[in-house]
């Protein structure tokens, strides 16, 4: 019974998301696409964070996916689906190769190195003008689906669903145990047979693939790539804030956090341009002070306290 009921809410939400564009116009659809993008990135960031590793490299792999897609489509004439898939694969290949180095590091050393990698990608693409178009970036000849709002919405939703499925799979497979034991006690995890490096490398590569895929979908939806926007630090920082608000180490947490912050920032952008970042900052400080495990953790604890 419990298993069945726990499926009802997700199924209803997904169905609502699918029929959303039939009911509401282009503007809400665009807002929803932005929320989906950040929700997907927040989920991927959390997947690695379930092992305790704090990556600041999300923007790096997002940007790699973006640029690989655009270059394959424009310079090599690949079709959109193929360019997008390869774009994500290229981000994953970079993560796999770099993982051999950065996943030897822990704590702040790991975080700072991933941040530096994202910056290096940006600087190279910004300066290698003959290859990447330099600071002005590259423009696609056309947007996917001719820019049809509904089609773009469903494409972005589709990618989000893929990310959600991966997140749920990680939560319900052996990976849940591997990642949690690495987070809680690396030494003891090893002596229970967990291959720590291999586990981290697999998850790092999977999340980079998904981040690259989100970047690929983003670029074919908007039609251009520029180094400063494709590697925007917000792609690293906002997902992190969303996870902290919603609740870490889960699928629901990033989903809740990204809807709240995504919608709030859209509203605030209209009311106080650029001021929304200030509000962001205040929200994050309040969450860390009063709900260190996010909304989900806060309410779970309350429920637990009531029970006894």
């Amino acid at each position: 019974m419990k298993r069945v009921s726990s499926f009802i809410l997700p199924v209803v939400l997904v169905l609502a998301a699918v029929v959303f564009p039939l009911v509401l116009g282009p503007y809400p659809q665009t807002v929803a696409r932005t929320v989906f993008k950040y929700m997907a990135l927040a989920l991927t960031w959390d997947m690695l964070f379930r092992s305790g590793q704090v990556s600041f490299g999300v923007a790096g792999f997002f940007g790699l996916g973006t640029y690989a897609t655009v270059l394959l489509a424009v310079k090599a004439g690949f079709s959109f689906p193929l360019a997008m898939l390869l774009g994500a694969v290229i981000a994953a290949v970079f993560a796999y190769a770099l993982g051999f180095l950065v996943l030897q590091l822990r704590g702040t050393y790991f975080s700072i190195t991933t941040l530096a990698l994202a910056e290096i990608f940006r600087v190279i693409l910004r300066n290698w003008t003959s290859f990447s178009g330099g600071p002005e970036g590259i423009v696609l000849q056309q947007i996917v689906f001719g820019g049809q709002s509904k089609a773009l919405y469903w494409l972005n939703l589709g990618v989000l669903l893929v990310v959600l499925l991966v997140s749920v799979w990680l939560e319900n497979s052996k990976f849940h145990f591997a990642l949690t034991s690495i987070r809680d006690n690396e030494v003891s995890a090893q002596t229970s047979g967990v291959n720590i490096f291999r586990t981290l490398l697999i998850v790092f590569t999977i999340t980079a693939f998904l981040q690259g895929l989100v970047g690929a979908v983003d670029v074919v939806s908007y039609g251009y790539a520029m180094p400063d926007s494709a590697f925007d630090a917000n792609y690293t920082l906002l997902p992190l804030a969303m996870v902290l608000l919603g609740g870490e180490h889960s699928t629901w947490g990033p989903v809740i956090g990204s809807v709240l912050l995504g919608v709030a920032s859209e509203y605030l952008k209209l009311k106080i341009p650029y001021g929304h970042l200030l509000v962001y900052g205040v929200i994050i400080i309040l969450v860390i002070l009063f709900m260190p495990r996010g909304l989900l953790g806060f309410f779970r604890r309350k429920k637990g306290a009531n029970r006894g």
Partner: protein
Amino acid sequence: MAKLTTKKLTKQFGGLVAVHDVSFSIVSGEILGIIGPNGAGKTTFINLISGIYAPTSGTIKFEGKDISVMPAHERAKIGIARTYQLIHPMEDLNLLENVMVGFLFAGNKSMKEARLAATELCTEMGLERLEREVSQLTMLEVKKMEIAHALANTPKVLFLDEIMAGLNTDETKEMIALVKRLARERNLAVGVVEHVMGVIRELTDRVIVLEAGEIIAEGPYEIVSKNKRVIEAYLGGATDAEN
């Protein structure tokens, strides 16, 4: 035949030699006590055997095979398990899930199999209400969970690092009986690090005494405890040698 042997095993941290030329062996079904004053190198020795540290020199053989440079997670798979002196259970996993980890990874079982095997093992050890969080467990239950966590590797060699610390007299008695039973039933080679000599006397077939990283005595507890060097080593360090 010896299950596990070390030959001239040495671990150096900078200028400090924590374990020096330790050669020992342990056979299946045997419970070996490892004693010595604080800082004698007992835990470092276990860390070497379980693969947390790589030896500076010397060899470790398991069932005749050299495992000196084998990574810790592979040693877990071939049948080496241990508990930790400072207990850090997986706080984000419940009692049953903590025990499942070894079955999942060292034993390479599926989720379903691991859940079943862990439930069986916990029941065998007298653990109940397995969905509880670790923070809700008593000290005795935590210690039992630690042993179950190690036994989930389905080990042939098991090292228990101060598993009795923090238990009262009755609980210690129960634990001694439990460890004996588990070792006999599974034909395990067990290494026990303990400070309480009463436990060592009750539990072990044989004892090795470490001081400053070296073996200074070896034999049954009754004989080793009368050894002059052993008494001196303890009088210099701990005061519970006569407990």
